C-alpha cells in the first residue's frame, strides 16, 4: 500500500470582502472530509473592506511544515492587482483561474489559464455578486479535483449561515457546469 505523494498549494486571491478567506476555510474543511492533511493561512489588511486579501490552502497526503503557499499549483485571482502580484509564483504548468470581470490582462506563458466572468455570471444568474467566491471555488474544484465535490458541498453546508446555503449550493453548481465546458474538450 504505497500511495503516491500528493501535495497541492492553492492560493485564492483578490480584495477584502470578496469572500476569499471563507472560500479557503470551505476548501480546507472539504480536504479534511477527504482525510487529507491541510493548513489554511490568510493575509489581509487592517481595512474591513477592500485592500489585498488572500487565503492559502495546502492539501497533502503526507506531513508538511511550512503553512503558506510559495509556489502555487492553483491560483485563483479575483482582481487585476492580485493577478499581477501572484501569477509570477505559479508553478510551470500550474493552473490560473481569473475572474475576467476584473482581470483584464494576464501575462503568463506555460500555464493552463481559465478566464471567466464569475462576478458577472453571479449577478446575472443569481441576482447578487456575493456567491462569486463559491462559484469560482466550484469551478476550481471540478477543474483540479483537489477535493471531492461531495466534500465540497458538505463543507459549504457546514460553514455558511443557513439562510444562504441554498444560494451558495446553486452557485457551486453553476461553477461545476462552467467547468464542464472545458473538461469535455479533453
Amino acid at each position, binding site marked *: 500500500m504505497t500511495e503516491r505523494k500528493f501535495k497541492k498549494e492553492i492560493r485564492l486571491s483578490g480584495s477584502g470582502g470578496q469572500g476569499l478567506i471563507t472560500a479557503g*476555510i470551505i476548501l480546507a474543511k472539504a480536504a479534511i472530509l477527504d*482525510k487529507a492533511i*491541510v*493548513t*489554511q*493561512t490568510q493575509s489581509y489588511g*487592517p481595512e474591513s473592506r477592500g485592500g489585498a486579501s488572500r487565503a492559502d490552502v495546502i492539501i497533502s497526503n503526507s506531513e*508538511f*511544515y511550512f503553512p503558506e503557499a510559495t509556489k502555487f499549483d492553483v491560483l485563483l485571482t479575483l482582481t487585476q492587482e492580485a493577478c499581477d502580484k501572484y501569477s509570477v509564483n505559479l508553478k510551470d504548468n500550474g493552473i490560473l483561474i481569473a475572474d475576467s470581470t476584473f482581470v483584464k490582462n494576464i501575462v503568463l506563458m506555460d500555464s493552463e489559464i481559465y478566464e471567466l466572468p464569475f462576478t458577472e455570471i453571479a449577478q446575472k444568474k443569481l441576482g447578487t455578486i456575493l456567491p462569486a467566491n463559491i462559484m469560482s471555488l466550484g469551478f476550481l474544484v471540478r477543474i483540479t479535483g483537489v477535493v471531492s465535490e461531495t466534500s465540497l458541498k458538505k463543507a459549504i453546508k457546514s460553514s455558511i449561515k443557513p439562510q444562504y446555503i441554498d444560494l451558495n449550493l446553486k452557485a457551486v453548481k453553476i461553477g461545476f457546469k462552467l467547468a464542464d465546458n472545458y473538461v469535455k474538450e479533453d
Partner: protein
Amino acid sequence: MARVKKDIEKQVVLMQGNEAIARGALDAGVNFFAGYPITPSTEVAEILSVELPKRGGKLIQMEDEIASISAIIGASLAGAKAMTATSGPGFSLMLEGIGFAKITETPCVVIDVMRGGPSTGLPTKPSQSDIMQTRWGNHGDAPAIVLYPDSVLETYELTIRAVNLSEKYRTCVVLLTDEILGHMREAVSLPDLKNIKIVNRIKPTVPPEWYRHYDENPKYIQPVASYGEGYRFHVTGLAHDDYGFPTNKADEITLMMDRLKKKITHHLKDIIQIESFKMEDARTAIFATGITARAAKSAVLMARKSGKRVGLIRPLTIWPFPDDAIRKYLRNVKNIFVPELNQGQLIKEVKRVMGGVWNYESRKSRQIIPIQKYNGELITPTEIVNAMKEVR
C-alpha cells in the same frame, strides 16, 4: 474495531490557532477572562465570550488593557483561574500589571498574539518582536515563564501548560503566538480530556491564624489561599514580608526576591521544553521558534535532500532561556542560523550561550548567522536554504 476507528476520525476538525487557545483555556479550567479586543488575538475573547458563560465562567470586556490585567489578577486572588489575551500594543500596557502579578505571586496567564510593531504597527501581519518584551518588559528583577508553540495542536497543549505552570509556580505565565499561528487553520484532533493533566493551586491546610501568604519552603511551591475562604492576607506591590505587609528590612526583601527567582530556577527541568529535529548527525543547526520553526523544518528537509547535515533546535519554552539544553544539542555544531521575524532578539541569547570557539583543537570560532525579516512577511524555507548556501 471499525466503530472505534470511526469515532477517532470524527474528532478531526479544522481549527484556528486562536480557537485552540480558547479550547485549551476551557479545558485547563479557566473560569475568568477579562480583555480588550485587539487584532490578531480577538477570536480568543470572541469564542470565550460564548463558551465561558455556558460553563458558569465569567468574561468581562474591560475599558483597556491595564484594566484587563488588573481584573484577572483580582479574579485570581479570589480563586479563579484567570486569563487575558492581547497583542504587542496591549501587552505593553499590561506590563505594569504583569510585574504586580509577579511580586504578589498571583497565578494568571497572558496570551500575546504577536503582530508587527512598534506602536500599532502592523495589526494583521505576523512578527516575533515581543520576545524580549515578554522577558524584560516589566521593571525590576523577576524571571518570566514564556511559552511559544508552532502549530494549532501545540497551541492548545501549551495553553493548558501555561495555566498549569501559573497555578503551580504562582506567577504570570505568558503564551506567545503570532498572527499566522493565531489565524492559521489546521486539521486537529484534540486529545481526550481524560489524558490531560490539570494542575490546581495547592490550598493551605493550616488553620487561618497560622496562615502565611508567602510561606518559605525548600521547593518554593507554596499553598495559596483565596479571598473569601477565611484566610487573611495582605496584597501589595511593595516589597513585603511573609504575611504580605510592606517591609524595608534587608533580610526580608532578600528572602522575597530570592523566592521570586528560585521558584523558577529550581524547577527548570519541569518548565523547559525543547524540540530537537534531525539533530543526530547535524553539523549545521537552525535555531528557531514559533511560525519561523515551521519554515525551518521545511528548510532542514530541503537541505538534507541535497546531502547537507542540518538540524533544528526549537525551544517551546522561550523564557527561562534553555541555556543548558541548547549547549548540549549544539556543542558539536559548526554554524548556527537564527531566523526570526524581528531585527535580532533570539540571536542575542544564542550568541550569549553558544558564542566563541567550537573546535578547541583548531581554535575555530562558531558562526552564528542571522536571518531576519520584519516587513510583515514570513521567512520562507527557500530563504533559509539560500542563506545556508552562502556560508561554508
